[in-house]
């Protein structure tokens, strides 16, 4: 059992402000430095995922590893959560809901699951939300300082693929690489399909990206990369989590035009599944050559 002593005004109101009031009231004293996720599930206790494990929180705000003592979440709480996340404007987030998540200010992300409504073989809506997963985003300025000399070859930007398991900081690294290159005076174009790299809010990035970054958000990666290539004459295009054949075709086109590409790929442990996919699709050479 672990009790956190730190009591102060709540940091990250963009994140906590989207959590229903009943649960938010219990989170006043938690340690946001170690917090990764807050998970709300109908009829179950609120779970807090920290770097060192999963904990539950009592009504008094005390952390416990006994889920029976945790503050439970009702369907009404989840409904209120959806209202807060969408600012009472579900219609404005219907595309995000189809993809299963909504990005909040400062890049925090809320995953949504429940009873999916399928039309023409695709998810059109999620009704009766069963769980919300609030993922806490962090900006780590200087995260890429140690790798910049590997990315830059004199004035040239090397094509770079970042490979790691989930939740290891690929997006954080990409964001900081974009900031560093932008500060060096390179024209950086970010294609932010899931709105996590720049987290645009009303057209303004929520993170520090320097003065030379152009962002295209919420667009299919392959389409977005080619659009930025035509529209913004970038020195480098940065995008997150490639995987589809169309992504590699777009990368090949970008390389033909002499523009560099920096991107990331999911993999697990010592046998990177992501690499297998890339090799199977014949894209690894196009990415790294």
């Amino acid at each position, binding site marked *: 059992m672990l009790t956190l002593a730190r009591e102060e005004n709540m940091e990250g109101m963009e994140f906590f402000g989207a959590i229903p009031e009943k649960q938010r009231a219990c989170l006043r004293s938690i340690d946001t430095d170690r917090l990764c996720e807050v998970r709300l599930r109908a009829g179950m206790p609120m779970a807090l995922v920290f770097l060192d494990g999963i904990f539950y929180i009592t009504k008094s705000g005390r952390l416990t590893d006994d889920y029976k003592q945790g503050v439970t979440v009702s369907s009404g709480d989840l409904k*209120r959560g959806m*209202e807060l996340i969408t*600012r*009472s*404007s579900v*219609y*404005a987030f219907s595309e995000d809901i189809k993809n299963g998540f909504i990005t909040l200010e400062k890049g925090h992300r809320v995953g949504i699951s429940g009873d999916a409504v399928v039309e023409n073989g695709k998810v059109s809506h999620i009704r009766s939300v069963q769980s919300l997963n609030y993922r806490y985003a962090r900006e780590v300025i200087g995260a890429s300082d140690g790798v910049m000399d590997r990315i830059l070859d004199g004035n040239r930007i090397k094509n770079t693929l970042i490979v790691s398991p989930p939740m290891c900081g690929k997006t954080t690294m990409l964001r900081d690489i974009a900031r560093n290159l932008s500060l060096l005076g390179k024209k950086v174009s970010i294609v932010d399909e899931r709105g996590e790299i720049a987290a645009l809010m009303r057209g303004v990035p929520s993170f520090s990206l320097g003065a030379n970054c152009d962002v295209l958000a919420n667009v299919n990666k392959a389409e977005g990369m080619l659009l930025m290539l035509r529209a913004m004459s970038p020195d480098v295009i940065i995008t997150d989590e490639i995987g589809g054949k169309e992504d590699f075709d777009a990368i090949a086109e970008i390389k033909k035009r002499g523009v560099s590409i920096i991107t990331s790929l999911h993999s697990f442990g010592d046998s990177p599944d992501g690499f297998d996919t890339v090799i199977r699709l014949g894209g690894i050479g196009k990415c790294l050559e």
Partner: protein
Amino acid sequence: MLRIIGAAMIIFAGSMIGFLKSDALKKRAECLDRIISGLNLLETDISYGKTDLSCALFSIGETHKIGMFKTIAKNLSKDGIKSAICTALGEEEYLLERDKAPIKALADNLGMTDCVAQVQAIKRATSSLLDGKKNAQEEYARLGKLYRSCGVLGGILGAIVLI
């Protein structure tokens, strides 16, 4: 002299009551008209602009002087849409309960479904409000002048009785 002043005050008070009653009928129709116009604009903002509900309500309320919309926008994040609409309706003194019913029904859905459902819900509310507005205009045409005349005549009658 005192009788004359008293009579004048009774006539004035009677007339004021008549005019206020007549004015309430007129304002009910005007209020419904403004809400209907606001809902039409909101429908456009939702279906084409996909504007956030609070931004859309505030901007429409500000531009078209619809206090109810501004009140809803102000309370939206704190109270949620249903409670915000109920609070705003509570401040509308000229609307009757039957005028408020379609807006309360809209509060159950507003903002919380996709664009198509939003447009349908707003159209349903607008249609009911149009009936209410027609009714309010008819009542004003029928009773407005009557209330004013009754007020003045009632005041005069009171004054005569006093004198």
